[in-house]
């Protein structure tokens, strides 16, 4: 349980892993944006090939990405069905009352399906190749301009970093409390929904109390080590753009231009 981390980072040293986390974060959002530019077979094919190249560059097995699609599959199928049954136009293949399967409906359904899959693949690629901590660094670095508006960016980043740091600690604590309560006869994971919810109470309350204790200890330790908050601190962890990042940016530009020319 202690090995659990937020996200599903897979350590590696591929080209994608080595990109600056800021590049990956921005490029992922941008890429998801331009997926919406695709509106015909050619453009969807282009985006599909581009995504597959990125997946290949990460040296991560395709299975991990497909697993990312699985929890969303019912939502995807539902949306695809809506498109298939309610888009009118072109040749009608089948109809029953107000339901009809048409040529346009089928193509739209396929496009929506592709769109979902590509978006999931790209966001999975981001979380699989970037450590949560690096993502936190990236968010801090990218939000820095907001300091002008007196948003406490450095403090928020530290809060985020400490939260990530204490996830395994609290998981450990949870296991300990669960065992202690089991020894006292609390039954976790059986009974109806209401009984299960009730069993969580003796778990949550000690955990809640504990986390306050931890917070107090941590605050004392931070104080003793000279933490005064604010922007007067230097940073041990620095992010630096490399040639790779420029290249990744160029790829995004080329893709955008191609999409604009190829779309219907």
């Amino acid at each position, binding site marked *: 349980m202690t090995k659990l981390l937020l996200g599903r980072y897979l350590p590696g040293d591929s080209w994608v892993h080595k990109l600056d986390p800021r590049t990956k974060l921005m490029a992922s959002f941008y890429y998801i944006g331009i997926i919406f530019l695709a509106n015909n077979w050619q453009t969807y094919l282009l985006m599909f090939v581009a995504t597959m190249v990125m997946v290949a560059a990460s040296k991560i097995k395709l299975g991990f990405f497909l697993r990312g699609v699985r929890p969303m599959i019912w939502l995807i199928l539902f949306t695809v069905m809506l498109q298939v049954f309610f888009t009118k136009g072109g040749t009608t293949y089948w109809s029953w009352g107000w339901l009809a399967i048409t040529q346009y409906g089928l193509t739209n359904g396929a496009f929506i399906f592709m769109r979902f899959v590509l978006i999931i693949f790209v966001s999975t690629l981001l979380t699989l190749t970037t450590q949560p901590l690096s993502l936190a660094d990236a968010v801090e670095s990218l939000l820095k301009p907001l300091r002008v508006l007196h948003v406490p960016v450095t403090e928020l980043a530290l809060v985020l970093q400490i939260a990530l*740091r204490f996830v395994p600690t609290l998981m450990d604590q949870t296991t300990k409390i669960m065992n202690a309560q089991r020894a006292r006869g609390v039954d976790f994971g059986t009974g109806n929904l209401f009984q299960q919810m009730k069993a969580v109470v003796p778990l949550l309350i000690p955990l809640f109390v504990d986390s306050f204790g931890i917070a107090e200890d941590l605050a004392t330790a931070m104080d*003793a*080590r*000279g933490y005064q908050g604010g922007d007067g601190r230097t940073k*041990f962890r620095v992010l630096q753009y490399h040639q790779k990042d420029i290249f990744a940016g160029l790829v995004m530009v080329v893709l955008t231009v191609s999409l604009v020319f190829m779309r219907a």
Partner: protein
Amino acid sequence: MTVAIDIQHLNYRYPDAEKPALKDVSLTIAQGEWVAIIGHNGSGKSTLAKNINGLLAPGSGQVTVAGMPLTEENVWKIREKVGIVFQNPDNQFVGATVQDDVAFGLENRAVPRPEMVTRVHDALAQVNMLEFATREPARLSGGQKQRVAIAGIIAQRPDIIILDEATSMLDPAGRAEVLALIQELQAQSKMTVVSITHDVDEAASADRVILLNDGEVVEQGTPAEIFTHGEELLHLGLDVPYPERLKAALRRRGVAMPDRYLDQEGLVKYLWTLHSTM
């Protein structure tokens, strides 16, 4: 003799507490000295440590650290001189990885990054944790975490290091590991060490032992002097091992207990056979 810490007539009372936690405590600790402060729980040991670097503000009296009186203006300068290793290895680990944690104190003091990198490296080398530099705390043992905490302090190059029951949550191996490290560091750098402890071995490594009881200094002297005062004094200062306390408590409830000394495992075995014959 240069004085590292000088405390004169220090009094402290926690808000809402009936009794004062420290009563007229006066003591002087020389630069390079290793002093152990012992006393049972609630004797004011940790309160004293927190008064030295201004985590608590003295009620009355004068605290001088490295020649600077403890005042609101000096408090951050004093904290630069005094590093504290706390009891719980997990709750003082701020960084997401070992090297981030060691760098935390340096970041706070706005040390330029190139210097920070060398200082973090050197400190980790000194505590023998270099190979763990990029590990997350969840993958370290308690003793290793305390070594990282010590690295975080020596990276700041303080004059004084306070161990606030720093070994009390560790297993015997971790305790020995941390104690050996402190002895080595002290021999090398002549740092002043103040160790607040229940551990007999830790108290025995000190140059001087100060015994606190109910917020007052009861006795001070070399470990040999203190330990010859016999059982009673030891019971006043050093915690009776947990199995012994449990034995006494069970005996009071009328459970027959053997007289010989039992360690934890021995006691568990004894209790277990007791239950199965009932």
